[in-house]
């Protein structure tokens, strides 16, 4: 997947709209994953995703503060300018499994944050407007911190490959 912008982001408003969407979307998606893990009795991973969701919330608040006074453009969900299928920071659902462990969850988050970082870095490198480039660079740096933080967490996690991947029990049937 490629996190480059496929079109240029022209204005600060546009950039902030993207940033806001990105953070809200990411929070929402992590929360959804947390719920799914809760429902599937994986409380460890659920709480991790909850935590990630709350970071998204916090970042969204920051972006809103930054945007105070600015009018952000309304952008249709499909008009956001990233070429990866969805907002860069939102997790890829199909990579999740109810038996996933914290390591796998962190790897998934890391992947997303990386994509987020690449997105901002891309804008910082290519936007025609210097203000846009400046803010994007700032955000890219911020994302880099997140990446670093996740890497640190991951290191702390004693990731073991031998965690049983298979559910020997048959699936449930209903309805």
């Amino acid at each position, binding site marked *: 997947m490629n996190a480059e912008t496929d079109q240029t982001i022209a204005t600060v408003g546009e950039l902030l709209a993207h940033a806001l969407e990105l953070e809200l979307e990411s929070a929402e998606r992590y929360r959804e994953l947390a719920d799914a893990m809760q*429902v599937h009795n994986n409380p460890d991973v659920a709480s991790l995703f909850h935590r990630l969701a709350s970071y998204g919330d916090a970042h969204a608040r920051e972006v809103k503060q930054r945007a105070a006074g600015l009018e952000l453009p309304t952008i249709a969900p499909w008009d956001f300018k990233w070429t990866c299928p969805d907002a860069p920071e939102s997790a890829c659902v199909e990579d999740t499994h109810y038996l996933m462990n914290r390591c796998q969850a962190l790897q998934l988050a890391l992947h997303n944050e990386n994509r987020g970082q690449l997105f901002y870095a891309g804008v910082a490198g290519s936007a025609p407007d210097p203000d846009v480039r400046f803010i994007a660079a700032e955000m890219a740096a911020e994302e880099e911190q997140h990446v670093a933080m996740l890497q640190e967490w991951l290191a702390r996690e004693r990731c073991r490959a031998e965690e049983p991947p298979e559910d020997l029990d048959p699936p449930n*049937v209903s309805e």
Partner: protein
Amino acid sequence: MNSDSSSARSLSVAITGSGGSGAVTAGLILLEAAARAGCYGLLTRSSGPQIRGGESAAMVRFGVQPLGCMGDRFDLLVGLDWLNVNRFADEIPLDGEGVILFDPGVGAVPPALAGSGARQLPLPLREQAAAIGGGRLNMVALGAVGAICGLPREALAAGVERVLADKGGGVLEASLACVAAGYALAPEPLAALPAPAGGTGGRWNIGGNEACGVGALRGGVRFVAAYPITPASEMLEWLAPRLEQVGGSLLQAEDELASVNMIIGASFGGVPSLTATSGPGLSLMLEGLGLAVASETPAVVVNVMRGGPSTGIPTKSEQSDLNIALHGMHGDAPHLVLAPLSIRDCVFTTQWAVELAEHLQTVALVLSDQSLGQSRVITEAPARTPAPLARRVEQEPEEGYRRYALTADGVSPMTLPGVPGGIYTADGLEHNERGTPSSQAADHQAQLDKRLRKLEGFDYGPAWAELHGAGALAIVTWGSTAGAVLEAAGRLEAGGTPVRVIALRLLAPLRRAALAEALAGAERVWVVEQNHGAQLFRYLHAGQALPAGARSLARPGPLPLRPGEIVAAVTATA
């Protein structure tokens, strides 16, 4: 912890855990191990609403006598984890005599369970599992359970080998090691069953849905058309490859309207045919079944009942489809309704249903349910019944052959496509003896009489019910509930109250005279069933087959009727 107080000495173990914990697998192994140790046994399971990875519970009961139901209480609860375990609190009654086995690392026993007063037995299961490459907590727990219940080590190993035979990747080896570690971990056996008499000789380990499949094959079914539905799908999945092996086939239809009409078409062609479904599917089949009744085309439906009405509670058992089975077709459409009385009896009852449907050229509905279909039992191999009743086929029809001839016994000889001189058109319109549509009163009356006569006049022999005992207290029941009723009767008798049990296998046509005879002299009559509307009780009254003072114990699912509940009900008013 002590063994069950009932006449059937047994132990009841529940293993619970959330997705991936392997509770069900452990339960399956425990059942097999107990069987290999010479016990009879029963396994039921329960799970959350999630498709995959939800919480589940395997409930295993084993003992020295055949078991027809779960007990009133559990001797041992094994918590592989405590996530969402509350869901099962109702299903796993614990008391002060019980034991809760768990790894303290998964957290304290939740209050709902701890409140039972059961003794807590924390063991370092996780640690042991971690010490083994690919080790799993459930297998360590299983080993401990085996030791606690006094099962031989080898039986456990054999159980693991059988259940995990197909798993590759060292799963088998790791599991065996875990079981051994768990076995070593446990304290002295807390309970042990007396050494069972006799070997495990011809016994089977079989689920109810499979047992219906076996009955179908034995009865001669060679064509099945069906649409998947819980909890009947396993029957179809079992049958599909096996039908092929015996020269038949299974067709997955687009819906139940198709499946029922497909089996009618196949049966018209002379091939004994069956479909399996559950309530919503049965609803859709009624028009087709009415056609089978009117056109006198044999057809068998195994309806594996689940909680109703509508989509209801698809994963849980209930006996609430009796009404629709008896009365769900429009017009006067007499037909057969049967219900297996145990998992083992699924074989006989399904086979008998097929043979009766074939012989009487009618519809037979078999009312199994989720508690039979999705449970497993260790049982004596079902006896093979001799001399099947066959379809009365006219191979060389005489000139002027009449498909719907009025015969004394009501069965009109049938020809099959391919037979020269036997050409006729089967019809769901009322018809005369030749099959030509008719709206004349005389034809209608004659064919209605005939279709009733062939069912009412047939000699069904003693299989219409299982009869037990001879007390002044009589309990009438049907289908899967028979197991709990029989166990309740055993307890009552052990307590000095003789009881007679009449467990109905043939529900329609109602064998009124035989029932009257079986009830003769009974002073108190109870009718026990698992539904809200007292459907059997009302049906028996409809047939004026119950004394005025008869009482009803009817309770809906999803919880199974338990022997103790039945004992309490029938003695409360003694």
